[in-house]
């Protein structure tokens, strides 16, 4: 590049000449293009565009066969950029809205004749960024107009796909370098109860598990998580939980979800698992009353145990200040090497290496009548617990260094 400075100047010049609303995102856009090997002719750029950003993605090589038209396994970087653009657009939106409102009636049709209504892809086929921007804007418009569906539990697939999964994807693939195995043990369709070990002081493992499952499962299934009622007491958190498909862990909800043929995720250890000390890592806690087993038995749903390794190291909890926890009405108050010492910086999870393994399903259809038999329920709960514990040990052997590659 002969004169990057010149080019930069030129970029900053451009927005001055055009109406305000589009300026910011566009610069953003240009910037992104230039960071990639830049001045490629637009037409040639399109097919090469996808691989070029994804070349350094560890996960990308794993699924070349994924047919999805929307490239669900999109390189995280793109989503980030898209988000960035989208975010800018939110800010600009307000301005734009005003602009639209203030515009004289005559100029609006003019604006509309200019664009051959929408098909960004049509005039420059395959222009990646154009498509991204158009998608982001369409998403924003859908959100602002309320044009999306929410199910009876409050699950909002539109928001989950567009915002939550891309964010968590960054975390699970790039930050935690998660390896997933045994995905074939999950049912392709119909109900399944995924039972996992809980860990990590902050229950990130639930989010990671649901995104990883959604990304790796051939049918792109959503995991409907069951959460403690504390989650649903907290403002904001409760709504994130509901919108990503979660609901309160109680048998009516579990059975309703399973009855609808959903894949339900549950962590029977609850806060005992999340809030255990680092010294107790990978030791499964008590499994409560086995309510999850009863729910599975009543609906004849197979139970798929899942072992998650890596969650324990993200916020290693060295101590639990019980009086403070009681004061704040929390189940525990963690002290980690970084929290609360470093303040908000202490919230950054340590980049441990994660392994997730789904174990072979345990069928329950033949035990349908035994849902109220405590002996059967406890035996089955124990079997699930043992399976997870053994798989944890096996995975830990495979991962000698918690912060390895």
């Amino acid at each position, binding site marked *: 590049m002969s004169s990057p400075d010149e080019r930069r100047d030129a970029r900053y010049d451009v927005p001055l000449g055009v109406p305000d609303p*589009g300026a910011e995102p566009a610069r953003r856009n240009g910037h992104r293009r230039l960071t990639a090997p830049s001045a490629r002719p637009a037409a040639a750029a399109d097919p090469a565009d996808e691989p070029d950003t994804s070349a350094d993605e560890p996960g990308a090589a794993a699924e070349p066969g994924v047919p999805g038209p929307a490239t669900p396994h999109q390189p995280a970087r793109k989503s980030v950029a898209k988000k960035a653009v989208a975010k800018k*657009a939110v800010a600009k939106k307000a301005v734009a809205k005003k602009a639209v409102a203030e515009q004289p009636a005559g100029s609006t049709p003019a604006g509309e004749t200019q664009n051959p209504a929408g098909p960004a892809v049509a005039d420059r086929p395959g222009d990646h960024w154009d498509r991204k921007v158009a998608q982001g*804007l369409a998403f924003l418009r859908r959100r602002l107009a309320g*044009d999306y569906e929410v199910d009876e539990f409050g699950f909002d697939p539109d928001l989950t796909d567009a915002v939550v999964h891309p964010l968590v994807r960054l975390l699970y693939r790039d930050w935690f370098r998660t390896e997933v195995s045994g995905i074939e043990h999950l049912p392709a369709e119909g109900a399944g109860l995924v039972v996992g070990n809980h860990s990590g002081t902050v229950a990130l493992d639930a989010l990671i598990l649901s995104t990883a499952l959604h990304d790796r499962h051939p049918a792109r299934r959503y995991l409907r998580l069951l959460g403690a009622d504390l989650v649903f007491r907290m403002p904001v958190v409760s709504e994130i939980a509901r919108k990503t498909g979660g*609901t*309160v862990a109680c048998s*009516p*909800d579990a059975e309703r979800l399973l009855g609808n043929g959903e894949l339900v995720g549950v962590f029977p250890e609850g806060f005992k698992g999340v809030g255990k000390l680092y010294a107790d890592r990978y030791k499964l806690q008590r499994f409560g009353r086995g309510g999850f087993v009863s729910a599975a038995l009543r609906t004849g749903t197979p139970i798929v145990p899942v072992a998650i390794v890596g969650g324990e190291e993200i916020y290693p909890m060295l101590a639990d200040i019980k009086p403070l926890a009681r004061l704040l009405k929390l189940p525990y108050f963690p002290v980690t090497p970084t929290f609360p010492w470093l303040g908000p910086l202490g919230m950054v999870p340590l980049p441990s290496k994660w392994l997730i393994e789904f174990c072979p399903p345990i069928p329950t259809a033949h035990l349908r009548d035994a849902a109220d038999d405590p002996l059967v329920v406890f035996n089955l709960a124990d079997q699930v617990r043992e399976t997870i514990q053994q798989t944890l040990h096996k995975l830990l052997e495979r991962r000698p260094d918690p912060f390895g590659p």
Partner: protein
Amino acid sequence: MTPGDTSGAPGVVVVTGVGRWLGAHVAARLAADERIERVIGVDPAPPNPELTDLLSDVERIRLDLDSLGGLLHDLDVDTVVHLALVTAPDPQQGGRAGMKEQNVIGTMQLLAAAQRAPRLRKLVVRSSTAAYGVSFRDPAVFTEETEPREVPRGGFGRDILDIEGYVRGFRRRRPDVTATVLRFAPFIGYAADTTLTRYFSQPVVPTVFGRDPRLQFVHFDDALEVLHRSVAEEHPGTYNVAGPGVLSLSQAIRRAGRVAVPVLEPGLAGVAAIARSLGFGRYGLDQVDLFVHGRVVDTSRLEREYGFTPRSTAAAFDDFIRAHHGGVVVTRDQLATAEQLVLESIRQVRSTVRERS
């Protein structure tokens, strides 16, 4: 039942609360049904002037509910439809005390009279999904069997629990009477005028910060249909009446083209009380609780037993939006135009950049 009558349709129907919107419409609708011989509307107060036309075919009797016993006996009434419920305290009618008097005491008196009515065969009582109370441990979807985990804080919710308790007692004492309890979701529609429709009609709508409750509505016309069928057919038991599907509050506000203003939850009840006393809206703890927890019910029993599915919550809300497009702040067309505008300017800038570089 008169001999030879196979439809199960009643002869003489008493409807309480005809002075109000719902009662008047139900009474008018029953009066228009040829199978029903006689419809008598009871209300201590004269009906609203705009409802009098509606009630032309209805025999109206101005009567307090405590003197209903004689009426039921003398006129050989075989069906009572109890709709005289007050959903929010009205300062002009005694505030909360008057509301409780009307809801709880009124229902007690009605049931006492009904219990002594020899020819009574059918009792239809309006209830509300507020009967499920609110709690953070509640399941996401209430079926008719769900027991409330916590007594609601709001007056209306408590009244509803009391009313349902009295109806249970009545069922025990008069097992020969078909008692139908209809738990209605909030009414909505082009013409409905309730606390909630007034709430959604404002251009700027207050919400609770960090909460996006799931809401369900029932279209007013569907509520009328269900009430009509309850009178004309035999449907003993308790039924949830709501439009299938769910709207989240933020989604509803956006669809209505309004702007949401999140308000912090602590002290919200106090603010609502102050606003109420100053005459801004009539939001009480009932509304605050609804906007924190939301409420979704299972309507499969209604659909199965009545063979009738109310229009979906989203469709009912659309109908409401069409009638209340006055205070719209943002329209869909504006959003679509803005989208095109932004997209177009981005394209322009990009092509300019490309040409220059």
